[in-house]
């Protein structure tokens, strides 16, 4: 809602600049989007009198005009507007002027003819297309005949006003009008406002003889009409047009303009019908009937819903109540009798109708938020009075009041101690009472208890908390002290699972992975990949795009999307992890369960290539190292084992392992299947995904000091040839089992399966470290143990010791 600074000043003796007023409104009432003075940025735009025009010799549409701009000699200006005519007062952009969008106008030649400036349309000097009167939409604007050549045009067009654009919150429907805003400003500045008192002159027949209205009061608790006859349609006077276009409305004709003007002033939407187009003298406010249709003012055709409220005559609906009037009964050339409607419609119906028909109008917006239930008669009278004064109409006697259920004002009790206890202030009773009174409330006191009667127009105030807001904002939020909560102490501590999640992130970052946050909504295809447990997909009922339509059931695909994004931008080395939730749903349930997961994806090289370190493309074992180090950080209490998994459809069948803790599968890792990589348009990528919730829930190994032996360790190396299908795990397990009491560690130091070993075989070499914690080991003991190991390797695994 754009509100005019000058208009406000007509009612309120304000002594502040527009920008300061806007700031005050923003800090006390509602947000301000913008403060604009339409003439800002414009320069040297003056009234010109078109003395003569002649056709351009080399053009079929240009005219050469001699224009008096108040200087000694007229200016010659070439103009292409179709509506240019001798004698007009026009807007002239002089040489050196600035018009809209900071465009500079210079002397020039148009098809060889010198032109000293430009005759302007309203659009060219910054008016939005939507507010320019239709008759000037395609040409230059013609100023009133009494405009003085050479004068700046701004005042003639209301362009020196400042327009404050209010972004009214849904609860403050009362601010959608001049009067509502004035009420608030009156409280903010503690200044009185003198509102106009309409003085309608009734001269015609009694309206009751000409019109009866039948209202379903559950749909329209208030409904009134006045009738004005002998109306002469004409353009509105300039002052009215200015009010309208400055508020963002296109002037149309005096009758329609008056209804818009009254809405802006009082906040009460009015509708003007052409009474002569009613099929009879009866008007009905009712629900639409199945199959009824209506063509609205904007020429939109609507199939009406039985929940729509319509205004109807004896034959058919003539308006979609509270939203938009019908075309058939609209004010148009030839209209002489106007029925003016002022009503209140049930807001929920209006909201749904506006949504249903996609017609969000200024009227529907106001009815949705609630209008001033005590202001209908004033608005109606003021409109009738203006139709008399501006359109020569004869106001028929009386008002048809078909329904007039004005709600009782809210009466709210509040105590001073409550006010100060909630706001943290030390306000006295007189101050609080005064604030409430400036807002229009009646206040009676009983000790520290205040009984507050709230004006009906403030339909947002119902409970003590609402009054607290009023007191706080008018008192000023800047005046509130700033303190911290006191009272009983509370512990601020992360839970065990929150601590583990933080530790998870720190661990993986320390291991070289960047944290990613990807989209949890994805495609059905991707949601179903890399599944760690069977689950139904969960789909959005009404997604915005197919890319984000299904809840993820894995974290990896999001990371693969990230890698694809990087890869498409020539970033080839990417190492990411993500901690987030997956959504598993059981068949027959609506709501999925949420499980915390941790996943990683690495492509290219983990370490950036450098002058002293050759690029090492990421491989299975690098990622396994990361997973192992991470699990060690998490101190899961139990053996971590990696078991080849050849069956995951999205994974490389030969390079994938399930990750087990104490025999329970908590995740998997490996290389993604080349066909998946191709699908995502990425290179070889290694991934892991773990059920983080499982890790959180597992018992943990507490740190424990273990004495470091003072006695020397003895090492023995063993190299062996084994069949290809013998695994490292088998060998290590055997060595550990047979290595005796002093075997401290087994470390693989070489793997070879090249040309020097027989086909089907591989060579593995291990270092075994022996140590006694209590005395120096004797070589013989070690040799004995080592030989035992060698023998078992030969016997059990068919190893050939080398």
């Amino acid at each position: 809602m754009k509100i005019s600074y000058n208009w406000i000043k007509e009612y309120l003796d304000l002594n502040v600049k527009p920008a300061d007023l806007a700031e005050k409104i923003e800090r006390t009432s509602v947000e301000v989007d913008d403060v604009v003075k339409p003439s800002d940025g414009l320069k040297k735009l003056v009234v010109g009198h078109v003395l003569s025009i002649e056709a351009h010799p080399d053009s079929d549409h240009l005219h050469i005009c001699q224009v008096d701009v108040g200087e000694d000699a007229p200016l010659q200006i070439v103009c292409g507007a179709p509506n240019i005519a001798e004698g007009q007062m026009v807007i002239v952009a002089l040489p050196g002027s600035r018009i809209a969008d900071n465009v500079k106008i210079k002397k020039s030649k148009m098809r060889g003819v010198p032109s000293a400036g430009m005759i302007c349309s309203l659009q060219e000097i910054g008016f939005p297309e939507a507010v320019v009167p239709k008759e000037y939409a395609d040409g230059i604007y013609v100023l009133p005949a009494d405009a003085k050549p050479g004068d700046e045009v701004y005042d003639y067009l209301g362009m020196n006003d400042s327009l404050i654009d209010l972004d009214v919150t849904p609860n403050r429907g009362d601010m959608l009008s001049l009067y509502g805003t004035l009420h608030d400003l009156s409280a903010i500045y503690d200044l009185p406002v003198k509102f106009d008192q309409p003085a309608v002159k009734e001269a015609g027949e009694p309206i009751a003889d000409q019109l009866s209205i039948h209202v379903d009061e559950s749909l329209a608790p208030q409904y009134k009409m006045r009738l004005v006859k002998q109306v002469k349609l004409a353009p509105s006077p300039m002052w009215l047009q200015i009010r309208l276009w400055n508020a963002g409305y296109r002037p149309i004709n005096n009758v329609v303009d008056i209804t818009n003007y009254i809405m802006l002033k009082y906040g009460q939407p009015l509708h003007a019908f052409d009474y002569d187009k009613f099929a009879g003298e009866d008007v009905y406010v009712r629900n639409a009937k199945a199959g009824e249709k209506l063509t609205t003012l904007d020429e939109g055709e609507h199939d009406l819903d039985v929940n729509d409220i319509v205004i109807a005559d004896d034959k058919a609906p003539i308006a979609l109540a509270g939203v938009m009037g019908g075309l058939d009964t609209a004010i148009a050339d030839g209209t002489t009798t106007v029925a003016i409607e002022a009503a209140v419609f049930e807001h929920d119906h209006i909201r749904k109708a506006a949504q249903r028909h996609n017609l969000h109008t200024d009227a529907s917006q106001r009815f949705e938020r609630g209008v001033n239930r005590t202001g209908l008669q004033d608005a109606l009278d003021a409109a009738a009075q203006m139709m008399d004064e501006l359109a020569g109409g004869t106001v028929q006697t009386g008002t048809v009041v078909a329904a007039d259920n004005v709600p009782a004002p809210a009466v709210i009790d509040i105590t001073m101690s409550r006010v100060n206890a909630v706001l943290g202030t030390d306000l006295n009773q007189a101050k609080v009472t005064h604030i409430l009174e400036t807002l229009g409330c009646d206040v009676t006191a009983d000790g520290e208890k205040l009984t507050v009667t709230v004006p009906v127009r403030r339909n947002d105030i119902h409970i003590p908390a609402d009054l607290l807001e009023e007191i706080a904002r008018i008192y000023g939020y800047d005046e509130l002290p700033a303190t911290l909560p006191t009272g009983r102490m509370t512990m601020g501590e992360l839970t065990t699972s929150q601590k583990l999640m933080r530790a998870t992130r720190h661990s993986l970052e320390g291991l070289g992975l960047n944290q990613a946050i990807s989209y949890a909504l994805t495609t059905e295809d991707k949601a179903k990949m890399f599944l760690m447990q069977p689950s139904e997909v969960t789909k959005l009922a009404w997604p915005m795009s197919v890319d984000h339509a299904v809840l993820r059931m894995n974290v990896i695909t999001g990371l693969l999307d990230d890698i694809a994004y990087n890869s498409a931008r020539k970033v080839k080395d990417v190492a990411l992890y993500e901690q987030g939730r997956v959504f598993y749903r059981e068949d027959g349930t609506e709501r999925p369960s949420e499980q915390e997961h941790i996943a990683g994806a690495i492509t290219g090289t983990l370490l950036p290539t450098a002058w002293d370190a050759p690029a090492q493309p990421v491989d299975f074992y690098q990622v396994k190292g990361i997973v192992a180090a991470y699990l060690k950080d998490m101190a899961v209490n139990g053996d971590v084992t990696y078991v080849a998994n050849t069956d995951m459809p999205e994974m490389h069948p030969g390079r994938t392992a399930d990750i087990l803790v104490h025999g329970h599968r908590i995740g998997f890792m490996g290389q993604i299947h080349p066909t998946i990589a191709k699908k995502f348009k990425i290179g070889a990528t290694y991934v892991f995904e773990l059920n983080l919730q499982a890790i959180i829930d597992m018992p943990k190994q507490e740190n424990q000091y273990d004495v470091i032996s003072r006695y020397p360790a003895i090492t023995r190396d063993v190299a062996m040839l084994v069949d290809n299908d013998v695994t490292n795990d088998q060998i290590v397990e055997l060595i550990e089992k047979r290595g005796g009491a002093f075997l401290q560690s087994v470390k693989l130091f070489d793997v070879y399966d090249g040309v020097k070993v027989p086909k089907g075989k591989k060579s593995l070499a291990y270092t075994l470290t022996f140590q006694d914690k209590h005395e120096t080991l004797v070589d013989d003991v070690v040799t004995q143990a080592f030989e035992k190991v060698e023998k078992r390797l030969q016997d059990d695994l068919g190893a050939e010791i080398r």
Partner: protein
Amino acid sequence: MSLKDKLNELHERGLAEIKKSGDLKDVNQVRVSLLGKKGPITEVLRGMRDLDAEERPKVGAFANEIRDDLTAALAKRREELENAVLNAKLANEAIDVTLPGTPVAKGEPHVIQQIIDQIEDLFLGMGYQVLSGPEVEEDKYNFEMMNLPKNHPARDMQDTFYITKEILMRTQTSPMQARTLETHDFSKGPLKMISPGVVYRRDTDDPTHSHQFHQVEGLVIDKHITMADLKGTLQVLAHELFGDKFDVRLRPSYFPFTEPSVEADITCFNCGGKGCKVCKNTGWIEVLGAGMVHPNVLKMAGVDADVYGGFAFGVGPDRFAMLKYGVDDIRNFYLNDVRFLNQFTKKG
């Protein structure tokens, strides 16, 4: 020539030879030739037998003095030469210290995570719990218990991803207010919590909109919590995230679940409050919504609104990050371009 003169001469000659010695081998030779068993000093000392008993100790002492001096000179020369050798060796080992260091594998927390962690740590220090709630929420918690009944105008269907009629992707972290209010035992102490998490809106992604973003909800309920406490708490938050120079102002606003409702602005960091394009010449930038918890919200969760009350606020870490680092496109946070992620490396 007296013995003493002889010694003096030996001394001078010795010092000269030491000085002349060019390497460790020379030094060794000089030492042997001067001080060795067959060397001249030994010889001189042998000649002492011929001296008076009175003279003998004097010359002996003098000879020792000279021997000590030459020994010291030899040691000094040896050290000089050793240093020279070492220095030459080190000079040979010189490297270009401006070559880059060997890369180490190092990852960074996501910038949004950094902001969430910072907020969490601040509030943990003030005795708040950190709670996380479901991302798939019931309509009841997301809307109804937040004082947004089914036909409420502020509840725009367009903005919500519904799964079924009653199940939806949470549009805000506020349902955690209802969930914790429902379960909190006030006899054990006040409720002070923050709840960070992912939220979803039915929006088309563009530079300023994302269908997925983050929120941190804050809630404090006790017997004597004031709006001044809210203001003070938000001030602490702004100072923590942006710095002490930043001021907070409150403006009236509207949320169905708070009354009074406010929006909090902080000093524009682009212009420091003077007014610029970023803050539309106001000197202030809107950063969060807050208010005193609406009595209906307390009542619906079974809390006695006549006894208990307090404040709630909702912070958008995405917006904070955009403002703090001048990120011009919210989509950057979810596309995970590593060149973007690696820009936020400052710790502490």
